[in-house]
């Protein structure tokens, strides 16, 4: 799986995760980046106008990171959502803020936390890449490139490595 240190660092880590982390840490010091791993959007039929995006957020820094919003040039609107089952009824709840704790990780995964993407501006095909920007409470922005793929492409769910 590809780990990615995102703008402004732009260091892409392929396999040599430790080396990448070391480089990022060295160049960023206090402002350790929020890494995004395995971002994907399940392929949906063209007529479906609401999609989801899943990913793993990894905070290798020493301060908590708070995601407060997201946007994409490819969609009219993105909201942070959580699917919950309460009293046997399935519902989606807007989430104001998602905190990725220092030295911690948060999974956006099916049937839980997800980005709800509304109003795709063009039909998406498998292997398309969708640019998504996560907004953090400190004003930082994190660029994410999410790949569109069938749900059964690599099994279900968005579990990544340990």
């Amino acid at each position, binding site marked *: 799986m590809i780990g990615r240190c995102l703008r402004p660092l732009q260091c892409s880590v392929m396999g040599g995760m430790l080396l990448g982390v070391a480089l990022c840490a060295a160049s960023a010091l206090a402002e350790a980046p929020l890494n995004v791993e395995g971002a994907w959007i399940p392929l*949906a*039929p063209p*007529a*479906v106008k*609401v999609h989801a995006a899943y990913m793993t957020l990894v905070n290798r820094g020493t301060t908590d990171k708070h995601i407060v919003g997201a946007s994409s040039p490819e969609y009219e609107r993105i909201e942070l959502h959580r699917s919950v089952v309460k009293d*046997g*009824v399935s519902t*989606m709840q807007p989430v104001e803020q998602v905190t990725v704790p220092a030295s911690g990780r948060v999974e956006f995964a*099916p049937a839980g936390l997800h980005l709800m993407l509304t109003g795709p501006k063009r039909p998406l095909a498998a292997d398309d890449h969708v640019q998504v920007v996560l907004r953090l409470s400190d004003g930082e922005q994190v660029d994410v490139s999410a790949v569109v793929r069938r749900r059964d492409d690599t099994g279900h769910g968005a579990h990544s490595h340990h």
Partner: protein
Amino acid sequence: MRKRRQLLAVNIIAAAVACATIAMARVSGVVLDRPQLVQAFTLDDHNGKPFTADSLKGHWSLILAGFTNCPDVCPFTLANLEQVVAELGLRVRPDHLPAVIFLAVDPDRDRPNLKDYVVQFHPDFVGVTGALDQIDRMLKGMDAIAVRSKPDAHGNYQVTHSAAVAVIDPLGRLCAKISPPFDPAPTAQFLADLFHQHGNLRAPENGQ
């Protein structure tokens, strides 16, 4: 907001339940001691053909209520049910494999999408929708509910719906409900055991 129906589950649980002494810890749900016949309804399948309570007879069915603009849970569940059925194929005869039915409860938005939406998970999956009152009748038969929220400023609205999958026996009776998550292997094993316990329910006149 639309009238919210009292969950029939309460009655069923009080009346019946051998509450899921389900072998596998990762499957939760209820098995009804006395299966309940799904009452009549008239809907259409995703090819526009009539789909009624009689369409549930002669085979096992797994029914999920949802809507096509549900981005997360409905597709997740349908994808899991596809895997459940694949796992079941290793455990039961092909003619015992259940039909998987997606009851689309948001018909205005669902109708144009329904076939594309459903068959992406499996070509044999069946999408069903129709008039709201008929949808509600089928929901009642599944012991399920759906509530459509008021539209927001963008005209978007949410639909909340029962998370459980209804298990209908070949006599057209609700005999179990399974709750998420639908882990493929244990869910398939649970269903295989359930089908086995119910024996060969082939002919409607065998029903009790």
